[in-house]
């Protein structure tokens, strides 16, 4: 489902010249801030073992800053490395992070939840024309055909609130909003049809918990779904427990998830998890006019009470 492999449109190449500029800027800035002691480590991307791939990298030596890159293969949301899930990273001191617009929203959310402090991180924002979807061939250049689904409807290509923004945005060809179309298709279903759709999707879940491990907002050290006294969610991959897990996940992310779609990217069973996230985000926007992660916020609509809150959902 995740696949950009559904070749919906003829593949038009996307101008990727900005990635080289961004790579240069990241390298220069990383070397500078490591050398002058502004930060003790930089979380970024470096080239992967196979050509055309990348992997997250933590650089502590200014001499190694030259190995940092930015390319359409930089899919990971590095915000994850600043949460309690990666304690060893956080312990290093003040850290710089390379952040695309979508990653930036996760950082803002984490700041609002007291997980990171703005003054303790240095954000190297990068403009981003999009990254590749999971079905893309490594050697292929970025095209409208192999672009990740989330990038087709991106509203934050130039990040805001970063310490520095690297690169300038090229103009993009028109993109089909695949995910919005899929959302509309689900919305048009009857509740019974929709239930059947998700039941089928969740029945494939093997409870590998990759979606949880990769999510920057799943930073609890003890997930309630792993508890057994009392057990709220059955832990084996059976239909009832699967359904419960995914509903818990969606509810816990409501008003928090900023839509980086990492859960969907890492799902080995190709469950369209970001559709659920987007549905929750849509509800938040319709009910409270709220969008997660646009700026660090002390209180979101679900943790505050206002007299004029929309109560129409109470029936």
């Amino acid at each position, binding site marked *: 489902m995740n696949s950009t492999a559904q070749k919906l449109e003829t593949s038009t190449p996307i101008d990727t010249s900005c990635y080289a500029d961004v790579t240069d800027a990241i390298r220069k800035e990383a070397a500078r801030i490591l050398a002058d002691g502004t930060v003790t480590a930089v979380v970024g991307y470096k080239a992967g073992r196979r050509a055309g791939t990348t992997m997250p990298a933590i650089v502590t030596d200014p001499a190694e800053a030259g190995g940092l890159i930015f390319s359409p293969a930089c899919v990971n949301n590095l915000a994850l490395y600043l949460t309690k899930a990666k304690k060893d990273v956080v312990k290093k001191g003040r850290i710089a992070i390379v952040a695309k617009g979508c990653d930036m929203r996760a950082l803002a959310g984490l700041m609002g*939840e007291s997980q990171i402090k703005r003054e303790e991180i240095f954000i190297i924002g990068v403009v981003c024309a999009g990254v590749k979807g999971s079905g893309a061939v490594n050697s292929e250049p970025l095209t409208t055909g192999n672009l990740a689904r989330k990038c087709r409807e991106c509203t934050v290509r130039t990040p805001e609130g970063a310490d520095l923004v690297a690169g300038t945005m090229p103009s993009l060809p028109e993109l089909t909003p695949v995910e919005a179309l899929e959302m509309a298709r689900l919305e048009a279903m009857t509740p019974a049809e929709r239930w059947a759709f998700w039941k089928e999707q969740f029945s494939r879940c093997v409870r590998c918990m990759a979606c949880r491990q990769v999510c920057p907002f799943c930073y*609890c050290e003890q997930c309630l779904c792993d508890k057994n006294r*009392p057990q*709220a969610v059955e832990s084996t991959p059976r239909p009832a427990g699967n359904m419960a897990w995914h509903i818990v996940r969606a509810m*816990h992310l409501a008003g928090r998830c900023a839509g980086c779609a990492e859960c969907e990217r890492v799902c080995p069973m190709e469950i369209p998890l970001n559709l659920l996230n987007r549905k929750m985000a849509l509800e938040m926007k319709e009910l409270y006019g709220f969008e997660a992660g646009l700026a660090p916020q002390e209180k979101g609509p679900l*943790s505050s009470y206002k007299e004029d809150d929309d109560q129409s959902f109470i029936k």
Partner: protein
Amino acid sequence: MSRIGVFVCHCGENISRTVDVERVAAEIGKLPGVALATDYKYMCSDPGQGLLKKAIAEHRLDGLVVAACSPRMHEKTFRNAAKAAGLNPFLCEMANIREHCSWVHEDREEATAKAIDIVRLMVERVKKDKALQPITVPITKRALVIGGGIAGIQAALDIADCGHQVLLVEREPSIGGHMAQLSETFPTLDCSQCIMTPKMVDVANHPNITLHTWSEIENVDGYIGNFQVTIRKKARSVDMDKCTGCGVCMAKCPQKKIKSTFDRGLGTRPAIYVPFPQAVPNTPVIDRENCTYFKSGKCGVCAKVCGPGAVDYDQQDELITEPVGAIVVATGFELYTINEKPKGSPIKGYGEFGHGTIPDVIDGMTFERLASASGPTGGKILRPSDGREPKQVVFVQCVGSRAREKGISYCSKVCCMYTAKHTMLYKHKVHDGQAYVFFMDARTPGKSYDEFWRRAVEEEEAVYIRGMVSRLYQKGDKIVVMGSDISVGVQVEIEADLVVLATAVQPRQGADALAQKLGISYDTYNFYSEAHAKLKPVECATAGIYLAGACQGPKDIPDTVSQASAAAAKVMTLFSRDQLEREPIVARVNERNCVACFYCKKVCPYGAVEEKEIRDRQGNLVRVVAYVNPGVCGGCGTCQATCPSKSVELEGYTDEQVMAMIEAL
């Protein structure tokens, strides 16, 4: 294995009429862990409690379920009984099979089955109950009284006389409130000022009372026994320590034509003023909106003539924070302004009565000022328009009150009596005058009240017309009052010289905002709500806050004073102890699992969640976690519902208990 005792109450016939209590006891007796299950006619009675106490010892019970009424009714009763028998009181729970079952069902078979389910759930909960110890918190033996009218004055004096410190906060420049504005008081016609001003002086001189006039409540934090109150002392522009109250500044102030609110706009006052000559404290305030110096920077006469140099134009509002243990709210009332519809209010105005447009249509309080010896006319009844003595005066009762279609359905309680008083005062001052009263019915329950009213009708010859006024209009220098006399079924028209409207008593503007700061509840009209209409008439549902006077509902002076003394008694009861015991039904954080997202802190309505630093032996910060202050926690469980990692739980309502209850269903 638990040894739980279950006691099923008949509640006379309240429960046993619809629920087969014997069968409930028999079924529950079969459950594992239940050592005893029995039924009794009145569990809350002395023999019923005796049964429970005896069973605890005989059957070595380690948990109790009393299947009876709502825990709001008798939880305390049975927990005390358990405690007396040596069992931790928090191992005793109630299963509500009356309000939740017998009272709301008719079918005996189904009601019995439901009762069995309810009791079974509670048995599962009690199995996992923990023995809890009550939380003790210290009490700050210092009271705050908000409002310096007769209610606030009485409460402050009573508490202070008992030896406790009192802070009295008044919004206006002087204490005294509405009672200081009244001429004479019913039913004895004694002069209001004569009985009021000595009390005001007592307040000023009392060593235990700190008076903050021209001050407002900015913020209230904390909880019973331990409130932190921030008071905004508005800039007076006069140094209270230096001012001697000589009054030269007021005499010399060139700006003298400002309408006096104390005299309901009939008299005037200077820009530097005390509201009335007997004001306490007798220190003037500069009305910055009308002062020439503040408007244009020129003048400064008051500063020049002030001998002690007390006038200080640069004074700023000052915020002070004071610890108090109890709060008495006595913010009083205001009269309904009927000519205009209050903004955002469902209350409709009475444009047809011409109040505000016809100068000789006044309200009851304005008439009080006309009749007062210290009023703008020196006690002569004179028309505001031309200063002539009115020969025919029409009084209209229930203007605004008891008018559902206009938005207020309640009775303002004092108008029948004060209108009767007004007719007498008028008759005493204008011997050849005639008073007419339009009324729906005369409500005179009170000691010597009906006699007073009858005197107005029978001896002082006020003409009472049963009916309502439909319209008022100016005709020459007369006001034509059109109404109906329903006792004889005719339309009446009276050409009056003066019309006095007994307008509805309403809470003060901003009463709702203050309630929100205090965390107390209020009704649709913004009157503050007592905890129980009959049995807790002066307590608020929020512990440690008490009500006195008309802020809770329309009241006359005797009722107000009684309630103020009652509120003071409640405060003194609280202060008679050194420590306060609170139920330990509070949230506790599992610090091992807490990830410090502080969603609990964001949603806590009590402000009970704090950030706690955990440090190692060298003092290095290991982690930050949430901490629930048990003294502040109200036990609502919102944090428990919000916590994503389920790291905070409410004692007695843990997830384990709730899940066990669900599984028992």
